[in-house]
């Protein structure tokens, strides 16, 4: 039975929040009721009543939406799907199924223990499958296996037709193929409520992965030297990183404030056969950075949470080695790495931005980043840029036209994260981060008609799972998220066909 949490329920104040404590923006902006559904039938019943009552439905799986799309819903109803979280198969040999409320850590555990399989999904244990997979879903195995949405073979979805009837659909390449394509990456909250992701097959779970951290000392970093580190990193992904034998290599460079003393690269590697016996690719990558004399930090466990302030100040205290000890790189069971990250920490106020890069860094970009993180700006002290490796299997030809992820040429993906404790810090952090980002994409390295945004020869826009409402000020914002190859126009057609009354909407949903 659907559990209804109204404003007078003692659970309301806790459950109204998402992970980003900025939302709901005020008590009045919170939905009037939260409907906790435990099955597709309950979800359909709840949606029928919400639509009939003229309420706006928003949908929450794990609660990690970066913007206000879910938690800000004045006078509306939030459908919380977190209690519908099964991971199984449809029959003995049928497709694998992931319910939208399952969190990624549980998905990894269930797929591994039951079937010895995995998903190339994200690194945060507590992120919900519903939003993550709807927007593409990538993680440390994506260079090896592609995006999570690339593996979907069918979706169960509830849509609302023109008369307001809730329609239960199973869409695949033969049934409502247009909606099926749209569900493979366009982002949640656009066309309906996905009640199950179905996969005919999934990639094998790697046996083991090698892990390491390279730590760079800010004290040794002139602007020139920093530029060299950044371009060495970017050049690898623009060149050698495109070779198939490197697809098992995933890295994440975190640029943290200079006052923290260091910044680093987290590295994870497995061979295409799922083992980590031959580490020559990893060693080759590490050796590129030998001239900068970084420290090699033994990695213990998983990639840490990427949804909290701790990322801006990782504690580097022990396990430091010189680079010539690469033989000591830790090799661990892949499952430990996948699920070891635990929760996302307590909700905190945050702002996020993103950029896809098709080319390495320019000196101008490196200079802007260097100056920002060596400044005294409060936002610099509370933020980090995570520069993820990208490409590999993600960029296989043809996927752009089968899915709703347009970015298939990029070699790195950047995520800005900024955290602060209370509302008094909103304005300064939002303004400073926005200015930093805008400055970074202003200049001759950016297409003249897209100044201030990552678009042009070197860039491929932004990631819809890292939505940034600042981008709305650019009339061409859909291009940033969906490219210029007709995908957005296609999604608008799908929207008109399957959600003609725009029941599912947010400030960045597909506009009619």
């Amino acid at each position, binding site marked *: 039975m659907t559990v209804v949490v*109204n404003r007078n329920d003692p659970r309301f104040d806790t459950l109204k929040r998402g992970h980003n404590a900025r939302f709901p923006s005020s008590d009045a902006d919170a939905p009037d009721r939260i409907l906790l559904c435990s099955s597709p039938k309950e979800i359909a019943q709840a949606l029928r009543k919400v639509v009939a009552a003229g309420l*706006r439905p928003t949908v929450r799986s794990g609660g990690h939406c970066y913007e206000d799309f879910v938690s800000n819903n004045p006078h509306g109803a939030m459908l919380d799907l977190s209690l519908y979280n099964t991971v199984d198969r449809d029959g003995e040999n049928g497709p694998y199924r992931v319910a939208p409320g399952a969190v990624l850590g549980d998905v990894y555990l269930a797929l591994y223990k039951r079937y010895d399989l995995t998903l190339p999904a994200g690194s945060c244990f507590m992120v919900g499958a519903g939003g993550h997979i709807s927007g593409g879903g990538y993680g440390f195995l994506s260079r090896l296996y592609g995006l999570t949405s690339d593996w979907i073979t069918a979706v169960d979805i509830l849509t609302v037709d023109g008369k307001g009837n809730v329609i239960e659909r199973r869409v695949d390449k033969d049934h409502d193929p247009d909606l099926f394509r749209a569900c493979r990456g366009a982002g949640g909250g656009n066309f309906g409520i996905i009640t199950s992701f179905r996969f005919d097959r999934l990639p094998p779970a790697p046996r083991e992965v090698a892990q390491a951290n390279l730590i760079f000392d800010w004290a040794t970093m002139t602007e020139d030297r920093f530029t060299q580190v950044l371009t060495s990193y970017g050049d690898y992904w623009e060149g050698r990183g495109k070779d198939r034998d490197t697809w098992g290599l995933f890295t994440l460079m975190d640029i943290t404030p200079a006052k923290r003393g260091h910044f680093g690269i987290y590295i994870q590697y497995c061979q295409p056969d799922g083992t980590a016996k031959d580490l020559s690719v990893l060693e080759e990558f590490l050796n590129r950075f030998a001239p900068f004399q970084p420290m090699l930090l033994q990695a213990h466990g998983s990639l840490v949470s990427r949804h909290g302030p701790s990322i801006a100040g990782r504690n580097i205290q022990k396990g430091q080695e010189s680079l010539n000890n690469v033989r000591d790189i830790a090799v661990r069971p892949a499952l430990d790495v996948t699920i070891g990250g635990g929760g996302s920490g307590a909700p905190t106020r945050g702002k996020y931005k993103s950029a896809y890069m098709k080319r390495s860094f320019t000196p101008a970009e490196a200079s802007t980043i260097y100056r920002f993180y060596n400044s005294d700006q409060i936002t610099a002290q509370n933020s980090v840029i995570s520069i993820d490796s990208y490409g590999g299997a993600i960029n296989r030809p043809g996927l752009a036209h089968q899915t709703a992820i347009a970015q298939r040429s990029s070699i790195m993906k950047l995520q800005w994260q900024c955290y602060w404790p209370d509302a008094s810090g909103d304005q300064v952090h939002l303004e400073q981060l926005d200015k930093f980002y805008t400055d970074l994409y202003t200049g001759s390295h950016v297409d003249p008609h897209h100044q201030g945004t990552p678009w042009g020869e070197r860039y491929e826009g932004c990631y819809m799972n890292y939505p940034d409402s600042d981008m709305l000020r650019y009339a061409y914002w859909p291009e940033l998220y969906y490219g210029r190859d007709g995908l957005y126009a296609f999604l608008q057609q799908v929207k008109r066909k399957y959600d003609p009354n725009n029941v599912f909407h947010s400030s960045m949903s597909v506009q009619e």
Partner: protein
Amino acid sequence: MNDFTANEAAHHQDSLIGNSETSCAPIDSRVNRRTFLAGMGLGGAVLALSPLHLRSSVERGAEELLLCIGSFGTADAGTLHLLQIQRGKTRVLYTQPSERPSAIVRHPFRSLLYVANDVSLYQHQPRGTVETFGLDQATGTLELVGRQPLSLSATRPRSLAISPDGRSLLVAAFGGGAYNVLKIDESGLPSAPSVILKQVGQGEHPTEQASAHPSHVLFHPRTGIAIAADYGAERLDILASDCGEFGAGNMKVAARIPCVAGSGPSKIAIHQDGELFVVAHVLRPALTAFRLAPEMRLIPVGHASLNDAPTAICFSSERNIVFAAQTRGTRQAMLTAWTIDPQKGMLQRISEIALPAGDVASMHPTGSTLWLASERGMIAVELDPHTGTPRKTYRVSSIPDIRSMALV
């Protein structure tokens, strides 16, 4: 699920779509019906609301009239014009920028005008807005005092109605298919929407009626309900509030009345006694008269098919005449007059007159004159003092692309 949760769930299940929080005390739905009956003069005390309140507050004597009109073309820019019409002469007292002013209403007893902005984006968010202007009658000036965004996706508002008590502003968002109610605070400024009703529905026309498009809203002069025409969903909606105050946060759609398929109900005019009202249908041009019966039933009582789409209608209640401005091809228009049987609601055409107007967006009768806001200027139609039928037209202003008008 533990017992507490199960009990709570059971308790809440039935109230899933009910309002969890309202600022007026919940009242048995029968009270709503009683209020309705009282307003209809069928029981209890008649509400002390005068349907002539607005008109009496805006007439400044037989020979002087103050009008606020809104104009805009295809661009976002638009203008409000304050016009003084005195002894047949028109003077523009003041102009004020306003983004796509699609509807204007005056507060029933304050010198404030509310203007709907027919926009799809405000501050980069998909939503329309309502502007508030202060009217200085001594100097004949307007001052923008506030702009209130509507709810997310409530785009392109095209109709406003203010409750007779001046406390609630009802907005029909044509583009986004939603009703918003804005509570008007002590200073007269509308607050953030206290009611958001997202509408779903579609009609026969594949593009014009692909989704709900609330196009016109009016408060009933006596019952406390509001009546709305939804051009896209092809229906009339009766909107009601349990406690009688829309802005208190519990307005609901109390009844829906389907219209003829493909007809496109667009505008409504209510007779001053509140019992009869007429709906203009645009896609299959027609006028339909309804009688408002107890328990919020609408009974169709009269129908007239038209050759040309009616773009604006109004009542001359004293004479039981309905006027319809109809588009006749490109930039041509005509005005037809219809008697309506006050008892049976039957419509009978009694006269027509060509208009030098193009599309007429709004009409208001004042005494022996009918004022028309059109894409080719302001038109005055002189009415026969004996029969009330149109006798003569003359242009009082050549301001183009007028989309909205209010007597102030």
